[in-house]
């Protein structure tokens, strides 16, 4: 049983939420209480995917997760990709492909695509389209996003081959 003070495990780190209200969504708590503002808020009804995070390894809309119900779950946000000093390979591929325009959809897409490539390293375009069908982008027309996924997938393959060759 838990009350309004609870802790959340985000990107491997434990955060205290003090005096939370039971109606708060995970997205709200991440942004407003934990100062993790990478996940974006555009609709708060599950339609746009800009708030996408991983909960126990699966992509979900953090706006539809009740924050206090996520106690003990492993939460990964866009801040959990890459490291302090270096952006992740998918982030880099987005830059290289020019897949970022206004950037609002980008954090959610990166989380979804990183998760896709972790489970399916060599997805065809249809698989990618299906995997990001819950992430809306109003700017790019998706062409460069698909290109970014191709680049990231190829780079990971090359890297794996190099590692195996060692």
């Amino acid at each position, binding site marked *: *049983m838990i009350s309004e003070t609870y802790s959340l495990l985000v990107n491997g780190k434990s955060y205290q939420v003090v005096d939370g209200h039971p109606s708060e969504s995970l997205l709200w708590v991440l942004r407003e209480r934990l100062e993790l503002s990478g996940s974006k808020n555009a609709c708060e009804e599950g339609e746009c995917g800009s708030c996408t995070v991983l909960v126990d390894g699966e992509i979900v809309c953090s*706006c539809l997760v009740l924050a206090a119900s996520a106690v003990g779950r492993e939460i990964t946000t866009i801040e959990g990709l890459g490291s302090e000093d270096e952006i992740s390979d998918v982030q880099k591929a987005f830059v290289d492909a020019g897949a970022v325009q206004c950037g609002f959809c980008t954090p959610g897409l990166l989380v979804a695509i990183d998760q896709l490539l972790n489970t399916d390293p060599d997805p065809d375009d249809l698989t990618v389209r299906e995997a990001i069908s819950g992430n809306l982008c109003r700017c790019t027309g998706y062409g460069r996003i698909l290109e970014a996924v191709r680049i990231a997938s190829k780079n990971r393959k090359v890297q794996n081959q190099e590692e195996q060759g060692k």
Partner: protein
Amino acid sequence: MGVIIAKSVNEACAVLAENPAATVLAGGTDLMVQVNRGTHSLETVLDLSRIPELKKWTMEDNQIILGAGISYTDLTHPQLSAFFPALAQAARTVGSPQIRNAGTLGGNLATASPAGDTIPVLVAMDASMQLKSSTETREVSITEFITGVKANALKPGEIIESIKVPIFKGPQEFLKVGTRNAMVISVVSLALVTDYLERKLRIGVGSVSPVPFRATEAEEFISDKFDWETNRNLSEKVINKFSELVANSTEPIDDHRGTANYRKHAVKVLAKRALERVSAGDIK
């Protein structure tokens, strides 16, 4: 009181008996939309999402018993989808990967929307549901459970424990019309399930009446005309008559997703298409 995360069905029922006003939470994909809009404020929440029993499925006497907490993503796994392809097809059309990971079968039924995509399939298959409280376990049919637009037969203190789905031999189809492919609420949906052993075609229709229903007149007509040996050779006339009968059984309304006229037209197209696909499938 905050959020209570139950670990078993018995614990959940005990919590509900003590706090009958608690809000039940599963995947949150319907509930949190209301909460975010401010139309539903939460005080005590009973979270069912971590009850292992609700995530399981078992086979019993040619029936599959699905835990209420099974997600759409779970339903599309080949291991499960093989038993009821139409239910898996319906699950695949729900929302987006994010919504399918979180949203559950139990939540779709409890919400009881006329457009709930699993409902016409489960209605076509005569599925039943196990409801449980701290004092009682009862079984109701899907049609008894869904009592109206977004209304269900749950009594205070009760949760949906499982859904029992008979296995039918023969091809199945689920079709849905919406404004695009992903992330779309049905304007019309239709499930066609072949029951080869009973020589019957079962049809469930959604979004064209207050509650999804079986088009029984159309079922009788087509089950009689269907060629159960080869399942080919349906004449144009029979197919048209069948889709007319399905359309005539609907009571659609005009709303922001479509007009009643459009829905009547679309349901006819879906009935015809589903029948043609089932006829092209392997019957035995």
